[in-house]
């Protein structure tokens, strides 16, 4: 039984490590997360191209005039490139420059967001996550009407988000509006498995070990199916929006497996056994 409790060390280390990553990022750049242009302003130009281009050449040619980022887009939907510039640059200038060096700029996708609007989105997005968190906390407390299990569920959700953000930082995934939507979704999924676990352990019958095991089996099935579905979406590379949702959820659900079954299950079992109530 005690060996089971020892498992909590893994998620604790993971959480501390993630906080370290985020704090380190903040100290180096002054920003907690890398934000996409939707949330800070700027332009993204997406071109779908029929053949591969020399990325280094494009970067060389363009970086003389603009400060920008260029990356390749892949997936089953075809090849393309994405150019990102700050809010001070007119995307049309970039297009004509690309045209000059012989890149096919016919029918581009352009997403241009003013800095002021981006800041406003950023503020609203933070507000949305905080509000969602409190709403969900209220529902969880209403469901169990016990303080400790509710706190355990919510702390698991917070850890999920913190660790997911840290991993996004490590993998170089920017936080966009779609990313925010997936973080809210992750809150939902995270609480799904926690409610399952808490209900099974507190209201189930039979040995604690069996209850724990049955919850683990169901929960893992849920997570694995979702992971499988998300991976197939990611492989398809339908669009950057869908890919970002899939990426964030993939990371988040993997993190959630760790926290639900190594942290929360320990906490709930400990609570039950100490109380002898369930």
């Amino acid at each position, binding site marked *: 039984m005690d060996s089971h409790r020892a498992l909590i060390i893994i998620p604790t280390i993971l959480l501390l490590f993630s906080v370290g990553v985020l704090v380190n990022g903040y100290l180096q750049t002054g920003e907690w997360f890398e934000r996409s242009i939707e949330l800070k302003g700027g332009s993204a130009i*997406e071109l779908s191209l029929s053949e591969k281009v020399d990325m280094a050449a494009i970067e060389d040619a363009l970086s003389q005039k603009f400060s920008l980022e260029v990356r390749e887009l892949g997936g*089953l*939907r075809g090849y393309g490139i994405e150019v990102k510039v700050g809010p001070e640059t007119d995307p049309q200038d970039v297009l004509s420059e690309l045209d000059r060096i012989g890149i096919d700029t*016919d*029918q*581009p*996708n*352009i*997403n*241009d*967001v*003013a800095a002021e*609007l981006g800041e*406003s*989105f950023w503020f*609203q997005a933070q*507000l*949305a*996550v905080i509000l*969602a968190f409190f709403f*969900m906390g209220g*529902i*969880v407390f209403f*469901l169990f009407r016990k303080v400790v299990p509710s706190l355990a569920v919510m702390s698991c959700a917070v850890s999920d988000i913190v660790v997911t953000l840290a991993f996004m930082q490590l993998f170089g995934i920017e936080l966009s*509006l*779609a990313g*925010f*939507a997936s973080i*809210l*979704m992750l*809150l*939902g*999924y995270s609480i*799904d498995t926690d*409610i*399952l676990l808490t*209900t099974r352990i507190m*209201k*189930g*019958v*039979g040995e604690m070990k*069996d209850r724990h095991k*049955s919850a683990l089996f*169901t929960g893992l*099935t*849920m997570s694995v*199916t*979702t992971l*499988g*579905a*998300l991976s197939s*979406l990611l*492989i*398809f590379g*339908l*669009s950057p*929006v*869908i890919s970002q949702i*899939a990426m964030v*959820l993939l990371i988040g659900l993997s993190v959630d497996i760790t926290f639900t079954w190594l942290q929360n299950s320990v906490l709930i079992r400990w609570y039950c056994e100490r109380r002898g109530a369930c």
Partner: protein
Amino acid sequence: MLKYWRIILLVIMILGAVLAMGFKIYPYGRHGVEVVYVSDDSPAKGFLEQGMIITSLNGAVVDGTEDWDAKTESLSGRVDMSASGQSYSFNVNDTLGIQVMDMERTNLEFGLDMRGGTRILLKPKENATREVVQQSIATLQTRANLYGLKEMKLYPVGGADGWYVQIEAAGVGSDIVNDLLSKQGTFEGKVIKPVELSGNAGTMVLGDQTWPVTDANGTVMVAGKSLSPNDTITLKNTELQFINRTGERLVFLAKVYEGKDIELVYTDPQHSGMIPLTGGAYRFYFTVLVSESGARRFADVTEGIPKYFDVQSGEEYLDSEILLYLDGQLVSDLRISADLGGNYVSTPSIQGSREDKDSAVEEKMKLQTILRSGALPTTLETVSVGIISPKLGAGFIQDAVLAGLLAGIVVVVIIVVRYRSLKVGLPMLVVGMSEVVIIMGIAATNDAAIWSVVLVANLAVVLAAWWKKHEIDVSAWVGALLIPLIGMIMGVGSFIWTIDLPTIGGLIAVIGTSVDHQIIIADETLKGEKERRSYTLKEKIKRAFFIIMGAALTTVFAMLPLLFLGVGLVRGFAITTIIGVLVGILVTRPAYARIIEALFKK
């Protein structure tokens, strides 16, 4: 049969959703392309307009945009086409100048992400009220109609920091939209000025001055100048255009107001408003302040115009009209009250009535817009431009369906391996897919009739099941009534639900949740021997529903803040998730539980 009433409900709703999505009438046949934009240099300008369906070109059927592109690539000389049931012929010198897109095949409203087009977000410079934003939208809409972009969508969106105007133009490039935004219209108000002839001679009266008018052998002479139709003459500072002769009457158009003559269009409650009439109709009125010279010209021109009594309204009018033009195009006409004739009025009141309040408000805004020369009531700044290339959008939907199927297969394989039985996994796939179908059916437009039939059918099934004393299940009953109701509301009026990328993301989330919850139901129901002894099947399903209801509630609450976030950019995600979760817990999960119960009951 009625024992399976939850499954019957699910089947009814799936059928309803399929009809809501796919039932569509093609007034001009299934083949053709939709006109998106007719450019100024096109020979079809003024004949074809946005939304018309071009069905054939030089006698050959047009089958989609690719076919259209191939057929129009090298076109010159005489071109015959039929569009929306009419035949047209044009002479193409240089360019045909018609942009088209594929016809809509479903009742689903796909977003720009999938169709290509331009999305622009404008923010008023100073903090504007919702009303000012709405006036700006009315102004832009009037301009858009004037320049042939009828299908351009404009709506106010509220962010945390005030109101924005969002413009969505499907299939149109940003140059056309920007052009429209920068247009500064010229307004002209012209009064119909009749001159009665007797013995081919008459008198042009302007205020206290008169000029002789003759029409002998088809030559019209005014003040000694001969005029052909559409020629103009300026008398007493007023430009008069000769139109034609009808019977013993010569008709002239007198330009009384130009843009600069309209000094102010009042919108405050003291000078403008709405009065309810009998039968739900509304009368609107507002006052404009006109310049001294404008008021003088109006008095001069309306001098001597005969009056007539209108039986319908019981009021007296001048036998004339004032015609309002924007950029040379007639946009509206108004009758002139008899007591204005010949009088100097610096603050004329403009009135009209419409059959209901909405159309009265709309007409009032339109007239105010025209009188302001199409100028915006506030300065709008472009804060975001999104250009979505139709090339990237093409084929997206097919790919999305393929990706969805692949994801579904992956899930079923995992489930089959886990339970070593097809009996759990296959219903799960069917139920998950039916959720998507029902959500899309709810999103479909113009489907209120179909969903009301579904509502009645559902009600009949629920009542029959209750009559036969089948089990009480409040959530399934609520679902049977609530979901068709949502289907009726969504896709009508201002509840148009556009299927955009965030919506597809939401569908993914819904399917994920759906599969998760079905796994919970399956596991709770099929749990091992020990539990089977202490709980009945019904109790186990009840406990499964405690878990999934809790989980669903938390998801709904997580999504609520998103409805108000980022001026609606991810609203589609939130709406889809919330409605999907509702469909799930109220319709499909009860049906799935019943299927599992039936399959494994021993």
